[in-house]
């Protein structure tokens, strides 16, 4: 066994126990373990995806083990030969890390009944995207009477001291930075314009939140009136009576693929495949699109409805037109430099 960085991350005890009692770690008959995300993701998957999977697979045993992407990667890395997780869920950045570290199995595309129905951007051979996350502008309709229409509106003088953003720790913060760069003539490869733009945004900035969740609190407390925001997070706030609205800016809403992967060396490969298949079905995606979940579907056979049809897109064609996808491979390469620069330059 080669001791790489990750395997040393596990405690000495775990390593020792695994060596001494290999039977312990080869859980022959363990249930399928699906590492979803915490919070609303877990709720949605518990209520919709898991029942659909069990119904289609003779009540197969499944366990949800919600955790962050980075924790999924660390856990699988710590026991590559017999991973404690069978199905991983990732944002675009961590997905590339997981694939780069050889933790994901290629998706058996030819066996899949639904893969070909996914819209082109969701067809990822290393793990398809059953859901999109969408980032647009969030604002407080009580304080801002004319809805914003563009990212550029954040720079309007009337929003002096009313704008919130997040730092680059999150997918949201990083994706937004790239979009701002594009708006000012830059790209994933040329981020300079974005930093210049944030420099100009400083008089308007009321807060640079440490994570997207903190933005929600800031809206609730009236600390900010406008910010980039995640469509799903806003719906949850709205349902709780916080005055917030979501608009897709005219430059296009940023769409992140949330991809789902079979873990390499999973002892439950077949069931893992079945779970992912279930997540791609039009039935599951339709249910998840409706309230209270409002998760953007990726299967082109799903007819858009409700709030998603109202503020995002009525059909797949419009969705493709209104969503911008970003090159996370390029982003990942430079993200650490960007974070360092953000740390140094953005002080308000």
């Amino acid at each position, binding site marked *: 066994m080669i001791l790489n960085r990750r395997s*040393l991350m596990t405690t000495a005890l775990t390593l020792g126990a695994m060596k001494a009692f290999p039977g312990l770690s080869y859980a022959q008959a363990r249930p399928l373990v699906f590492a979803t995300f915490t919070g609303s993701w877990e709720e949605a998957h518990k209520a919709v995806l898991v029942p659909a999977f069990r119904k289609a697979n003779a009540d197969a045993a499944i366990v949800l083990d919600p955790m962050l992407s980075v924790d999924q990667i660390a856990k699988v890395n710590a026991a590559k030969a017999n991973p404690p997780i069978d199905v991983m869920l990732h944002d675009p950045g961590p997905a590339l890390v997981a694939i780069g570290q050889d933790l994901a199995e290629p998706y058996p595309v030819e066996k899949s009944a639904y893969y070909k129905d996914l819209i082109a951007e969701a067809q990822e051979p290393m793990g398809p995207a059953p859901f999109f996350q969408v980032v647009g502008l969030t604002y407080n309709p009580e304080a801002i009477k004319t809805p914003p229409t563009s990212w550029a509106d954040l720079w309007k003088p009337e929003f002096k001291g009313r704008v919130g953003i997040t730092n680059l720790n999150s997918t949201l913060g990083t994706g937004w930075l790239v979009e701002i760069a594009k708006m000012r003539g830059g790209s994933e490869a040329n981020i300079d314009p974005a930093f210049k733009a944030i420099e100009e945004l400083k008089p308007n900035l009321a*807060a640079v939140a440490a994570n997207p969740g903190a933005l929600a609190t800031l809206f609730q407390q*009236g*600390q900010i009136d406008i910010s980039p925001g995640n469509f799903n997070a806003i719906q949850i706030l709205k349902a709780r009576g916080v005055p917030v609205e979501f608009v897709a800016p005219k430059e296009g809403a940023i769409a992140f693929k949330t991809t789902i992967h079979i873990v390499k060396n999973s002892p439950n490969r077949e069931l893992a495949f079945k779970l992912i298949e279930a997540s791609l079905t039009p039935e599951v995606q339709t249910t998840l699109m409706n309230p209270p979940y409002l998760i953007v579907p990726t299967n082109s056979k799903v007819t858009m409805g409700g709030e998603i049809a109202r503020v995002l897109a009525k059909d797949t064609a419009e969705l493709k037109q209104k969503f911008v996808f970003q090159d996370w491979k390029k982003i990942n390469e430079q993200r650490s430099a960007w974070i360092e620069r953000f740390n140094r330059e953005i002080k308000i």
Partner: protein
Amino acid sequence: MGAAPASRDVTSYGMGLAAPLALFFLVFFVAPLLQLLWLSLHNDTAALHWGLGQYLHFLTDPFSLSVLGSTLLLGAEVTAVCLVLGFPIAWLYQRVGPRLQTIIILIVLLPLLTSVVVRTFAWIVILGRQGIINATLQSLGIIDTPLKLLYTQFGVVIALAQVQMPLMTLPLITALGRIDPNLDDASCSLGAGSWRSFFKITLPLSLPGVIAGCTLTYAAAITAFITQSLIGGGQMLFMPMYLYQQASTLQNWPFASAISIIFLLAVLAVVSVFTTLGRMSRGYGGA
């Protein structure tokens, strides 16, 4: 853990009872710490090349050093606020009746009974633009536009001081309780004023408690990830957030390990200063 010999030395104590905890620490604290050290001594994220590159990077980078500096300074500010506000409460505790004592101890302990997250969110509500402080000041006509309190150094210090206050007050109450109240009376009857008695008698005798309280508060304040990030926001960078960024977002574990080790050493240095002061004060108290 061998059997005790027949003629047992009554002045020595068996270490057997400490073994379970020692083993626990060895496995879950010392071993991971050694892994951390091992990892930090690598120049690349895959941990294949040995070297001191991560430490060099940190120690030659003015920005990283400024993060370390501001974190240590934050701890000093919080500790000072806790000491100044906590000492009178502890002093009062020793001089009131039992019923008030119960109330004081309840007030002191109350923050410990709620989660840090809840306490911190309460501070967001208090410090916000439409929060209690701004609303009060505005209704009194003292200010026109809301003050910026949230996401400032001031806000972080105040919130941390409240969150960590019990760690200062409790050792102080214990230390002050050990002082014979007659000493104060004696000092007064010999002609010293109450301030002079305080500085000559009470304060020196309570120094062990002051040192213990400062050490605990300091260590807790500089590592308080939740309060720092919720009240300080995303642009005020302290060591715990810096570490999190490197480890979690960037997956740069060797650099994150090096940050941890440097942070650990810096904290140990500060704590050892406190301990040395404590040792000196014991000599002083005993004199």
